[in-house]
């Protein structure tokens, strides 16, 4: 069994019983996908909602919700996953600093875009731990389908 770490703006796929980890999600969102029949899991750590809004979009599709999610699905299909069996759990999208008139409001926009993309791909969301104002480390165990959330100030929860 191996632990794979997914950096910011990156994604990885694995087979059971490997574990996928991403550390300290702030406004970013971690998207866990699982095909429990094929026993294939995937985790994407997106930074921004929309690749078309920025100039660097094309060069870094794994950074954006709109491009990372289709990419993650394709990578999982390569390992034998079937699109119709995929289920999702998501976490992150916090607002780390309370800033008056925060025009950026990136955490909420990330979560909204991730949900929109998953709906478009017809992937149901089984659990989520999003929003609020704290960072989250995410462990995803494809073997059980459990998403473990560790927060510095809020303890640990299993979803």
């Amino acid at each position, binding site marked *: 069994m191996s632990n794979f770490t997914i950096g910011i703006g990156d994604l990885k796929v694995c087979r059971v019983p490997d574990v996928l980890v991403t550390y300290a999600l702030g406004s970013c969102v971690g998207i866990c996908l699982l095909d429990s029949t094929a026993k294939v899991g995937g985790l994407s750590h997106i930074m921004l909602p929309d690749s078309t809004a920025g100039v660097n979009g094309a060069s870094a599709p794994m950074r954006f919700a709109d491009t990372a999610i289709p990419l993650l699905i394709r990578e999982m299909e390569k390992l034998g996953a079937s699109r119709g069996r995929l289920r999702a759990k998501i976490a992150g999208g916090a607002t780390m600093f309370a800033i008056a008139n925060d025009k950026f409001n990136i955490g909420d926009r990330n979560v909204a875009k991730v949900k929109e993309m998953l709906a478009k791909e017809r992937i149901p969301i089984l659990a989520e731990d999003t929003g609020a104002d704290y*960072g989250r480390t995410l462990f995803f165990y494809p073997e059980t389908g459990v998403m473990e959330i560790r927060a510095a100030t809020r303890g640990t929860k299993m979803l």
Partner: protein
Amino acid sequence: MIRNYEDLSPTAIDCLKEIGNIGSGSAANSLSQMLGKSVAMRVPTVSVLDYQHVIEEMGGPEKVITGILVHLNGDIQGMIMFLLEDSFAQVVLSTFLGKEDVCVVKLDETDFSAIKEMGNIMAGSYLQAIGTLTGLTIDMSVPAMTVDMMGAIMSVPIVEYSEIGDKVLFINDGFVIDGVNIKSNIILIPDMKSLYILMKKLGVAEDE
């Protein structure tokens, strides 16, 4: 014209070091006045680092630190972030509130505002010193503060400035108060145009 931080010349980096020096000196002074204690300043080091390095340098993504975020407006646009280790919170709270053995993940409202206020003052005097040196008007937003995982705090500038690149100006400085070493790190992210203005004011701008 410089397009990202990697294009900075050694002279420009030296110049930013000097800015760091002056800013930190001024911040140490304010800190000393507020605490009523002598505050010694360590000579800051300034480097251009990618975010991943900054996070590793400070103890990894899950290390809990205090982050104070200030947006810059006026002649200089961008963001400055103070990353303070536990010892800072400890000194502030023992001086003002007589609290010992502070646990930064269990701060109450009063603790939080005391630390935030000290952070405000440091940020203000830091920026004021840079403004005076350069003759630029630097307006600062009301500082926002949080105590959380390093990686989650750093994701704020990473995301907001992802267009500019993966590098930041990392100013590693520190204070010695009552014989206690207090590490403080500052991330300075002026946008590219502002960096050019800053360099020009200091007479080290390269040709456009």
